């Protein structure tokens, strides 16, 4: 199954939304059929997963959830969503239920809203990632170097265990020189204000890497007029089509992590 998440707004003037669609994007490539399920939001308190049910989402139904719809401060809680067969309350581990089985991922539209516009991308947190020991290599050209532009980095991490553990993340340039490092946490939607790092981002590519943690890397930029951009980077497997794609992921990760 896929989990979804609500991004914490990077600035006070922004809001966060998500469209969750309980339908297959492509019936021919999907083993799962749309079913009436219970939509929950959930977060970790460090020792347990706390679930709250939002509604029952019927076959092919959609819901748009705004951050203000949840009685939670996104600065203190990283909020994820799941569609479950049974109502959930508390759990000591997350279950990867057999839903969303598809060659073409069932995704949600993950959005940031400003007064006059939106920026979004089609995203999900694959259930297959929650029991893995993750690492990260994200090569991004999406950091914009201009005095009117602010850049932020999200790293979304979700594990089956609710434990909140710290891990280290480094930013490298293409010469493998570490130009900054910071802490991230498991089961959090980590938000890093890149403007606070006092780096002159004047290169075309930066590598965000971690040896002991990972997740979905997302890059958000906003200018003084509230133009916005939101996009994730591809996992290393996406530079290769067919064959042994994970071999090339291992080669890339071992290079940048060494």
């Amino acid at each position, binding site marked *: 199954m896929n989990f979804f998440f609500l991004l914490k707004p990077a600035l006070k003037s922004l809001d966060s939304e998500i*469209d969750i*669609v309980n*339908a*297959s*994007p*492509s*019936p*021919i*490539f999907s083993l799962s059929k749309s079913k009436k399920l219970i939509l929950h939001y959930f977060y970790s308190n460090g020792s347990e997963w706390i679930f709250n049910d939002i509604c029952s989402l019927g076959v092919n139904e*959609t819901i*748009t959830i705004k951050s203000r719809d949840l009685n939670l401060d996104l600065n203190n809680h990283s909020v994820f969503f799941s569609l479950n067969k049974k109502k959930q309350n508390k759990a000591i581990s997350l279950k990867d239920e057999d839903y969303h089985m598809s*060659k*073409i991922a*069932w*995704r949600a*539209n993950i959005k940031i809203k400003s007064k*006059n*516009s*939106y*920026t*979004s*991308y*089609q995203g999900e947190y694959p259930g297959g990632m929650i029991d893995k020991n993750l690492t990260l290599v994200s*090569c991004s*050209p*999406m950091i*914009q170097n*201009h005095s*009117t*532009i602010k850049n932020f980095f999200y790293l979304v991490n979700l594990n089956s265990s609710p434990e909140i553990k710290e891990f280290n993340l480094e930013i490298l340039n*293409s*010469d493998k020189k570490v130009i900054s490092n910071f802490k991230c946490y498991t089961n959090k939607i980590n938000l890093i204000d890149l403007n606070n790092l006092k780096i002159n981002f004047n*290169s*075309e*590519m930066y590598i965000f890497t971690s040896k002991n943690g990972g997740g979905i890397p997302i*890059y958000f*930029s906003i*200018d003084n*007029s*509230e*133009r*916005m*951009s939101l*996009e*994730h*980077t*591809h996992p*290393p497997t*996406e*530079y*290769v*089509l*067919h*064959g*042994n794609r994970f*071999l*090339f992921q291992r*080669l*890339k990760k071992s*290079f940048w992590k060494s």
Partner: protein
Amino acid sequence: MKIYIKKLYYFLRNFLKIKPLIYNFPINKYASVSDAFYFRNDYIKTIFFLSNIASHTNPKIKQNDFVKIYIFSNKGEFLKILNFTLKPFETKKILFAELNLKANYGSFYVFHNFHQNELLIKNNSFVTERGYVGFSENSIFWNFVHGNHNSAYLSKNNKIKSLMTKSIFINEYFPQLTFNDCDKFDLIFTNSENKKINYRIQTYDLENNIINDSNFKLNSFNTIKASFTNNHKKIKFVKIFSKMYFPRPVIFKYYSKYFDVLHG
């Protein structure tokens, strides 16, 4: 011979809808694969970040990457080929407004080639360009979207060959987002096939009633921008129907100020 039998096997599977593939296999084992990227040169400009892809697939081998970019107009007319040699780990910006293209929009394909590619061949893998395109109204702030498809490969004799799969039956694609937050939106489709493709686009309101039902024909290497006004924000969903198995569009959503771009 073996590779042609394999191609026929996959063709029949796709054609008859028996465990179809999302993308075909290139015939040439040295082939380089690319998305059919969208560019526009109207009030919104385009930037592409071209990276040495050999440094992404096997960074320990430091080698140059020889790149060809083929650019087509929206009407499928071949406009230009650009050649680049990228040093290891090099990334270059390509600004489409500086290319003097005789089209306001269209598609481009990016094919990489490097000498030490034995590991890819040994593992039946193909290098693929699905990189990052930015769009901007002021050429300062860029709104990014990554590649949408593994659309085509470059044959030995430098012909662009489609990898998109199709069937004799109509398939449905349902972009998993809502449209009732915007005033106008475009769905962008490109055609890497050497044949015409038909698309049917249905728009739906909140109660799942059909609002529009439109048909589009897309000739070879054409790009189509299907534009929908949504003044009263009645359109909530769209569905796309085609013989193509994975007719996923690039989407532009327009708001009172600015725009959003994403792949559907």
